[in-house]
């Protein structure tokens, strides 16, 4: 949309013909209405679940997913108060390997880096969140997403740990998370343990297909 009126020109006092006026009034009304509906539905999607958002659930979901999805609960209602480390170990015909702290690799890359990469800051961290959100406490996947999350997490670990262990091809992998609470602030009267809590995932079989594209 190119050359508009000369900038600075006083607001047009144009006398519109009837058809032009009809187009403008109709178009303007449709735009205002569309804007109001759009903003209303986006508002309902970020507001707490309420009577209106339940009533118009399908419209809200239809509009917002997938391209207008948003989550602005940044550090809310409370900031994360624990460090979660994801560790992994491999299995091959030669035996089981040692635990490797994958998160520690991320942290090492972030330290002293003015522009951390998404590879270090988000890849593993969000993959673990995705896994956590799509699995029950006894590690059973929930829905289709659970299976995707499991394969994704497995491939992230395999990409970092390689294809062989002690000269033999990898046949299995096991992951665990170590959750450590941030120590209470020095001025706090509250006390809690900062010993790591482990969550052990089952051994997953590994085949060459799991390495597809990884290098």
């Amino acid at each position, binding site marked *: 949309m190119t050359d508009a009126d000369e900038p600075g020109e006083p607001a047009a006092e144009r006398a519109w013909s009837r058809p032009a006026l009809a187009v403008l009034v109709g178009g303007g009304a449709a735009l205002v209405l569309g804007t109001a509906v759009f903003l209303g539905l*986006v508002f309902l999607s970020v507001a707490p679940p309420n009577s209106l958002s339940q009533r118009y659930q*399908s419209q809200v979901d239809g509009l917002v997913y997938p391209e207008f999805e948003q989550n602005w609960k*940044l*550090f809310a209602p409370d900031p994360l108060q624990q460090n979660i480390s994801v560790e992994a170990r491999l299995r091959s015909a030669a035996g089981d390997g040692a635990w490797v702290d994958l998160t520690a690799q991320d942290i090492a890359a972030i330290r002293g880096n003015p522009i951390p990469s998404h590879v270090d800051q988000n890849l593993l961290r969000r993959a673990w969140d995705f896994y956590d959100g799509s699995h029950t406490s006894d590690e059973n996947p929930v829905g289709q997403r659970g299976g995707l999350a499991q394969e994704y997490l497995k491939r992230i670990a395999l990409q970092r740990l390689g294809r062989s262990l002690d000269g033999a091809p990898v046949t299995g992998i096991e992951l665990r998370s170590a959750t450590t609470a941030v120590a209470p*602030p020095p001025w706090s009267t509250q006390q809690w343990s900062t010993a790591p809590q482990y969550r052990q995932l089952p051994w997953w079989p590994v085949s060459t297909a799991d390495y597809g594209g990884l290098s």
Partner: protein
Amino acid sequence: MTGQPETGTEGLLAGIPRQGGQPAPADPTAVAPAPAVAPPSPPPLRPRLGAQLRDAVSAGCTAFSARPLARHQAAVVRIGFALVFTLHLLREWPHRRVLYGDRSPWSPGLVRDLLGDTHAFTVLVWRDEGWWFEGCYLLAILAGVLLLLGWRTRFSSVFFLVAVVSVQNRNILVGDGGDNIVHLMAIYLVFTRCAEVWSLDARRRARGGGGDAVGVLLWVLGGALLTAAQLTGHLTWRGDGWPYLGWSVLFWTLWAFAALWWLVGRRWPGGEPRAVLDALATMLHHCAMVVIAAQVVLVYSTAGWYKVQGSRWQDGSALYYPLHLDYFTPWPGLSALLGGSAVLVFVCSYGTVLVQVAFPFTLVNRRVKNVLLAVMITEHLAIAVLLGLPIFSLAMVAADAVFLPTGALLWLGGRVRSVLGAAGRRPVAT
């Protein structure tokens, strides 16, 4: 920039009450002009009220359709988000294949499974060959640069939208809040007249237009690409959820409108059909700018109101915790220093909630709004360094910029221009 007074372009929402058809001073510190309507004098009330109402509605409709307001705000949002996305792609260049390409743990199979469920749009899964990915990544960088410069913005804004959505939807699981806001703004920007100032388009117009051939060429190219995508089944007319509109509807509508614009401009250069199109485009621009402003308000309101309920925000220790999260402490010594002060942590925690909750309400008073805006931009700059989130922070500053007063933007533009001039280049802005 024209050097002429702007009409009601000071911050978007704060500008709306002043659209009495009277030019406002460009200087943000100047006292706001007296209302355009006659001073209230008691009787006779009835005819006055009716006339006032009619005048107000008429002035409102004129302001809505006559000429684009908030042109500098739209331009700075365009430049800001184009810059954020371009910097992101350049920064991730060494990791591009792991994040979005063939080496990604989020394999083509996994992403197709997820897309089958979400129906998100990305051209990156159309082919699995390496050249396709590398080409798309390079084109995405090009899209960012073109939008940044404001070159053929009606084309490059759509190009940018496709680039942003494609890259992000290839692996939605590596993004953060910064990517999220870029995604939304890339869509909204398509509907704004964001190249009225500070763009190559504006410079070309100021020099007397011309270059029709390039526009026609881009239009033909766009049509060919859309046809190819449509015939191979990658674009659909019907969406999967309400309101059941597929991407084809948007792309072909924009394409058809561009043709109409060009034809009408040739046939009736100064005529009414041309003016009608111009007014429609301006109304669309205003609606999109309201959506952008409302989106920023939603970000802060959501962030603020949900925090009010958090016990750590209530006890004033909330900011202590992010400063001790391994993933967000690139400078542990600095973080520990700040996190070690009970007073500082309390003031910053309460201040954050206060500012986020208060922000939408300060929009009715432009001075208070400007102070809060300065506080928020400062906070984002601090987050950039402390939490190691520079791209996220830059995106949030770009979003905040929609509320910057025109005077501040003109000053900033002047500074940038003098720096560019000192560097021996021709100014980009016009």
